[in-house]
């Protein structure tokens, strides 16, 4: 079985400060990990993914995420937050060893609020 946890419902950060949105996962095999962002009344937008290789993955809008196998984590980071980054962020996981289609399991989402 595959699962993902986002332990924080909301993260508040001041504009210009670094931000971190946490994600931990559980899979039987190797994980494929994704981050998506959802702005109000919009669909999900893909930010970045980890499949294999370098543990630090760079994505859209200056976001990056670090894969840590020993801690089973895939935290999303940005060096300097913008007010426009305020949105709902979803982490998702897919177990590489599971068959039956590309079934992603999503976390419960973390609301990021960036304040002036």
């Amino acid at each position: 079985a595959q699962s993902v946890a986002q332990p924080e419902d909301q993260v508040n950060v001041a504009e210009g400060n670094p931000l971190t949105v946490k994600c931990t996962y559980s899979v039987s095999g190797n994980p494929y990990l994704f981050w998506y962002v959802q702005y109000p009344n919009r669909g999900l937008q893909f930010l970045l993914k980890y499949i294999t290789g370098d543990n630090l993955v760079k994505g859209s809008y200056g976001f990056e995420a670090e894969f840590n196998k020993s801690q089973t984590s895939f935290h999303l980071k940005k060096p300097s937050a913008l007010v426009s980054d305020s949105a709902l962020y979803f982490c998702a996981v897919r177990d590489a060893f599971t068959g039956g289609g590309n079934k992603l399991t999503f976390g419960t989402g973390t609301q990021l609020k960036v304040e002036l």
Partner: protein
Amino acid sequence: DTAVSQTPKYLVTQMGNDKSIKCEQNLGHDTMYWYKQDSKKFLKIMFSYNNKELIINETVPNRFSPKSPDKAHLNLHINSLELGDSAVYFCASSQGGVGTDTQYFGPGTRLTVL
């Protein structure tokens, strides 16, 4: 030039009615999906089609029936709508049906059942 589009954007209907949501993608992808996002923003996959073949069918009431006339379209038909069906329904597509493929989402259809 929208990649994944859905119609309608909003759907308000009475309990017991039958309704359909349409989805189209112009990305040339082989695989399409339907997700349900509930009022707490929890996202769960419902169905997935690869080249018009059903490959994921989660535990969904059989009142929900997906139909894929071709690989660029995946429609969702819902019979005998219930209050609990109120949610936002997202369509998505990916190049193939493997785990490394990124899924791209449509803008969503907000269904309200009265």
